[in-house]
């Protein structure tokens, strides 16, 4: 990059690109650091709003409205940086930097069969989340695509600014069409963490799933759905922990660097040096050697 100043558009692009990369729970830190570098309040404010909106969607930032958890995602975006919530029937803007709701307006919700099913599924899901997530939140949304009704269940658990020097997020999303008899459930589980004690480590894990679900009635559907989510997420977490255990035994050693050489002892520097003398011309101060000589005594 040349030393000349960037144009405003280029600056906006760079700022937005950097802010979007902020790990979950670190958006405000990233924003403050950039403000120190950029020193242009108006520019930063606008970019902060855009990037903050995307950050909220990407990491399912949870809010509490009237005691109910609301998870922000691209499924409840309503244009002009606004989100809406089914439970409270409100739409609003969320300022991530100030941690505040703004411009709150009422938002009409159609009360139909799917809306009722949504509330039943939400209750069942809350029970499941309470069982497995220490500080989890969940939300169920409704979407109509080409006159087909879909339910979207979002689950989130995070731990930010812990005393253990890590910021982490577990996010899962399960979508199914409201169908009689049988429906297909697609899920995506996403884990992201940043560990920063003595080391700077970033972890990102994601898994896509597909299962089918029988439909008898609303109560059964809600409970079976919650049970399916529980089974699949348990399976994923168990495989993940096993995989990490296997990696700690294999990966670094086999694939990248051994803990000891093949000889099972540390390198014998004396041997290297004694071989070195054969090809050295000490008085001249430099050495000429050929590759074949080199090959002979590489350990």
């Amino acid at each position, binding site marked *: 990059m040349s030393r000349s100043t960037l144009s405003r558009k280029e600056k906006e692009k760079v700022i937005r690109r950097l802010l979007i990369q902020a790990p979950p729970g670190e958006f405000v830190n990233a924003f403050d650091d950039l403000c120190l570098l950029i020193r242009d309040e108006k520019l930063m404010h606008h970019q902060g709003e855009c990037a903050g909106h995307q950050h909220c969607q990407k990491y399912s930032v949870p809010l509490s409205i009237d005691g109910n958890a609301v998870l922000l995602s691209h499924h409840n975006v309503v244009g002009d940086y606004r989100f809406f919530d089914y439970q409270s029937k409100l739409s609003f803007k969320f300022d991530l930097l100030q941690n505040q709701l703004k411009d709150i307006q009422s938002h009409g919700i159609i009360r139909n069969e799917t809306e009722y099913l949504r509330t039943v599924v939400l209750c069942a899901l809350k029970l499941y989340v309470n069982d497995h*997530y220490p500080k989890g939140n969940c939300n169920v949304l409704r979407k109509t695509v080409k006159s087909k009704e879909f339910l979207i269940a979002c689950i989130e658990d*995070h731990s930010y600014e812990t005393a253990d020097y890590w910021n982490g997020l577990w996010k899962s999303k399960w979508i199914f069409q*409201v169908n009689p008899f049988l429906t297909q459930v697609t899920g995506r589980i996403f884990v992201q963490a940043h560990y920063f004690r003595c080391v700077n*480590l970033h972890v990102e894990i994601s898994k896509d799933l597909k299962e089918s679900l029988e439909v008898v009635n*609303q109560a059964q559907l809600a409970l079976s759905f919650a049970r399916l989510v529980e089974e699949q997420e348990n399976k994923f977490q168990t495989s993940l*922990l096993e995989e990490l255990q296997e990696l700690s035994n294999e990966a670094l050693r086999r694939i990248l660097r051994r803990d000891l050489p093949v000889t099972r002892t540390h*390198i014998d520097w004396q041997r290297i040096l004694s071989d070195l003398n054969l090809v050295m011309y000490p008085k*001249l101060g430099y050495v000429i050697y050929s590759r074949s000589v080199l090959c002979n005594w*590489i*350990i």
Partner: protein
Amino acid sequence: MVTWPPRACSSTAQERLPPPRPGECRPCSFRRRGEPSPLSVCYTSHTLPDPSFESSVKPGEVESAAGIGRRARVRGSSDADSSQDSSYFEGGVSSVYLWDLDHGFAGVILIKKAGDGSKKIKGCWDSIHVVEVQEKSSGRTAHYKLTSTVMLWLQTNKSGSGTMNLGGSLTRQMEKDETVSDCSPHIANIGRLVEDMENKIRSTLNEIYFGKTKDIVNGLRSVDVIPDNPKFLQLQRELSQVLTQRQIHIQPDN
């Protein structure tokens, strides 16, 4: 805040480039233009050696020795005819650059090892060791300062655990006084320091990358049901309330 692993490993020009072809040397900010590659036939110091220049260390000796010593630890890809495996890395690449200081010399050792990519695990180990050697006036001892940075990223793709990306870096420093003699010249001292440092860093990385990640995942979610969670009864009541409100079956689509 760090960008994703492959891009994060570009703090020096070296890592941004693809792996060198056999016999090539890795260019990086440490090498001056016009210097021959230490991996090629002739090592020279960056100034021609003055025959009257005397020190306990002969510049050429240390450079060539350092280069050769490094190659003893890492099999460069130019060693196609060597049938023996190298010590720590199988098929890694390294470069060593040295320069003189007022009362000693300094150098950098660069090592890069990419996973073979044939299995379900991809990865890359990059280490940068910067060593500063201050010779004491007696010529019998020297003070070594080593700053090592290791950048490591791994990616796995398995059916059970999905796609996993781990990336990060670790920096450590150490200082040591060592005797310099015929049986313990600079090359052996530096070699031992770097070897010890890399071994320590490797075990720390192993513990943190996998052990800490396990702890974090378990901190976010529990496979076993969390006992005695107080909200349970309240949520159960909520569910039965909602269910008794309406009992209408879902109508099939028309």
